[in-house]
């Protein structure tokens, strides 16, 4: 992930008023073990299932998995980056499936799909989130962004 996340489609900076039911540019992140270690340190969540194969296997998993809040953090940040003058009022996630991250250079690719959903109010933009890993949906969620003012 260090090489900066790739943007699948870097056009169309969304602005309030033209985002009605439109997809924000998909964001792809390739995450590796070092990214999980970095998130563990930054978040204080040192659960070894996120960095130790032995601990993950003992916990009934087939390997090390990403922190759910890391995946949620990437997904919510994709929305925040797309609406840089907005303020997030709420965000939610359902963790649909574990994200396995092998101990190799290839890592695991996540695709974050964010779509303006429902009827945007003059002040708020509702965004639906789906995070896909391979063919599997690993997270679904929602973000509500206040676009009336600069971040407070």
């Amino acid at each position, binding site marked *: *992930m260090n090489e900066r*996340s790739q943007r699948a489609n870097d056009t169309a900076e969304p602005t309030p008023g033209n985002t009605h039911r439109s997809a924000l540019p998909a964001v792809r992140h390739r995450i590796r073990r070092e990214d999980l270690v970095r998130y563990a340190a*930054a978040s*204080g969540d040192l659960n070894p299932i996120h960095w130790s194969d032995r601990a993950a296997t003992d916990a009934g998993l087939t390997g090390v998995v990403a922190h759910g809040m890391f995946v949620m953090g990437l997904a919510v*940040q994709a929305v*925040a980056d797309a609406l840089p003058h907005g303020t997030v009022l709420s965000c*939610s996630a359902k963790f649909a499936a574990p994200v396995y991250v092998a101990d190799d250079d290839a890592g695991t690719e996540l695709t974050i799909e964010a779509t303006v959903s429902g009827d945007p109010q003059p002040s708020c933009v509702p965004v639906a989130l789906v995070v896909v890993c391979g063919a599997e949906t690993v997270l679904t969620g929602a973000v509500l962004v206040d676009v009336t003012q600069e971040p407070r």
Partner: protein
Amino acid sequence: MRQAMTISDMFAGIPATAQAPYLVTEAKVREFERSIGARTPPLPAAGARPAPPTFAALIVQPAEAKAVAQLLDPGTRPRLVQLDQLLEFTRPIRVGDRLVTTTTVVTDKHLGRRRIVAVATDIHTVDGERVGRSRATVLMRGGA
């Protein structure tokens, strides 16, 4: 005794002890931004730097883990899986905030060998300003 119940809310409504105040520092916010690949936002025209929304996890997860641990019988080690997470904000968390939390077990249901616990955490400043709220659901399997 508890295993014999199919559904119980015996711990619902019991508030957990608030944690010590958490001071939000510029260095920690920057470290967290880097960890999730956030673009470092420009400084706001007024006020302190806001933290990314999910920075709230640093404050609420220790409180929620403590609340869940208080439900467990001593010596048991169930496997915990977080099912969902909701974060709501009255305003963004900002550098310089000193935050305290109060966590409440909202539901505690036994479904056979599985147990589903929902916890809610209010986030305030030490001065009593409401900042936000978290709600999370955890599935426990075995030993619960």
